[in-house]
């Protein structure tokens, strides 16, 4: 099967190429980047040198449709809404990693991203979170992949909000995020002496991913679920840890939480429940999933405060973006969900 990556210059684009290169059933036939047109892929993604002998091209719909069956959109928000519709029209299957088609509500989109140029297409894409939409993804033609922080928060929260009575108005999500999540554009804030050693609260209220997290959890539970999200940049390159604080409105014991996690993710190969009594990594830590498509989730019960704390760790570039996109493609094609993704992370 032939696939193309549009906007393959960025880290998610490069990560897609890395994953697709080892995928047994696909061949990367088309890679575009306005800025690096004509250059070999390895010049921009050094880990791919000598492996993928492809050159970046300028984007062109007919070339895309002629050379590919699937297109991954790794372009920034706002750009995808110009290109994706053209690709859909020529019958291409599109997996969009941007935020342009994640939200169903035009109003919510406007609030966080500004006006949408093609609002009629909102709601047409399947939200590319297999753990919640596995059935709908099978045979889908147009998928919008979740944001990285949204992925880790939703996977952590879903079993809890659908199994237990919690205060749905006071769910705190406190996220710690690596620098690669900010993308490849360098600016003052990513200057090494300024970015190293920070614990920088960069989006403490009004983070964009709030909209999709609330959309998905509310959809799951059938009532409005609000999420109070705060994001901090920490001194790692890859990785997100979301710490979710739920205030329980009924007694809950540990076994019930284990059960909720297990049953919710019984058919989700990439979700691992991590709550060990011994060892260094008793609870989820991005360090244990870097480079893999796994989402580790764990919890602790705080009876003093009738609080349930859930931890959820991913690699923002893999399960938070490119790995999840490939996982969606596998489901869209009816292949085994783990095809080309079933490898452990790098450790230490």
């Amino acid at each position, binding site marked *: 099967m032939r696939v193309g990556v549009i906007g393959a210059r960025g880290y998610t684009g490069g990560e897609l190429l890395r994953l697709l290169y080892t995928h047994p059933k696909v061949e990367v036939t088309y890679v575009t980047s306005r800025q690096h047109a004509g250059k070999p892929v390895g010049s921009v993604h050094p880990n791919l040198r000598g492996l993928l002998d492809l050159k970046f091209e300028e984007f062109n719909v007919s070339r895309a449709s002629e050379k590919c069956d699937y297109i991954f959109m790794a372009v920034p928000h706002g750009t995808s809404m110009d290109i994706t519709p053209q690709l859909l029209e020529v019958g291409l299957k599109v997996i969009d990693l941007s935020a342009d088609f994640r939200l169903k509500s035009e109003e919510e989109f406007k609030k966080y991203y500004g006006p949408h140029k093609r609002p009629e297409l909102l709601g047409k894409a399947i939200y590319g979170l297999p753990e919640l939409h596995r059935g709908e993804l099978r045979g889908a033609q147009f998928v919008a992949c979740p944001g990285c922080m949204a992925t880790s928060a939703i996977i952590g929260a879903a079993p809890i909000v659908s199994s237990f009575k919690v205060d749905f108005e006071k769910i705190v999500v406190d996220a710690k*995020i690596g*620098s690669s999540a*900010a993308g490849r554009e360098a*600016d003052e*804030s*990513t200057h090494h002496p300024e970015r190293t050693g920070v614990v*920088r609260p*960069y*989006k403490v209220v009004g983070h964009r991913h709030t909209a999709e997290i609330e959309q998905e959890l509310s959809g799951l539970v059938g009532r409005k679920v609000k999420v109070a999200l705060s994001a901090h*940049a920490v001194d790692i390159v890859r990785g997100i840890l979301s710490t979710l604080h739920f205030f329980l409105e009924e007694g809950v014991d540990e076994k019930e939480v284990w059960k909720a996690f297990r049953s919710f993710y019984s058919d989700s190969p990439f979700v691992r429940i991590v709550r060990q009594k011994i060892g260094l990594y008793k609870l989820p830590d991005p360090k244990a999933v870097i480079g893999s498509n796994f989402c580790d989730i764990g919890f602790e019960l705080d009876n003093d405060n009738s609080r349930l704390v859930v931890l959820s760790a991913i690699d923002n570039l893999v399960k938070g973006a490119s790995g999840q996109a490939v996982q969606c493609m596998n489901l869209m094609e009816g292949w085994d969900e783990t095809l080309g993704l079933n490898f452990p992370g790098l450790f230490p």
Partner: protein
Amino acid sequence: MAKGNCPECDAKIEIEDPVIREVTECPECGAELEVVEVKGDKIKFSVVELSGEDWGE
């Protein structure tokens, strides 16, 4: 010495003989302020809208 409050954070700001349209920065919250009115030793400021920098958005 004329005095006024920052519209953003209410910090006290003093300027020697302020001039209308003069721009200054609030010492506490860094908001960019423009002098819009001076009555005796009372100054009124308005915030100069900055394009929001969103690092790591």
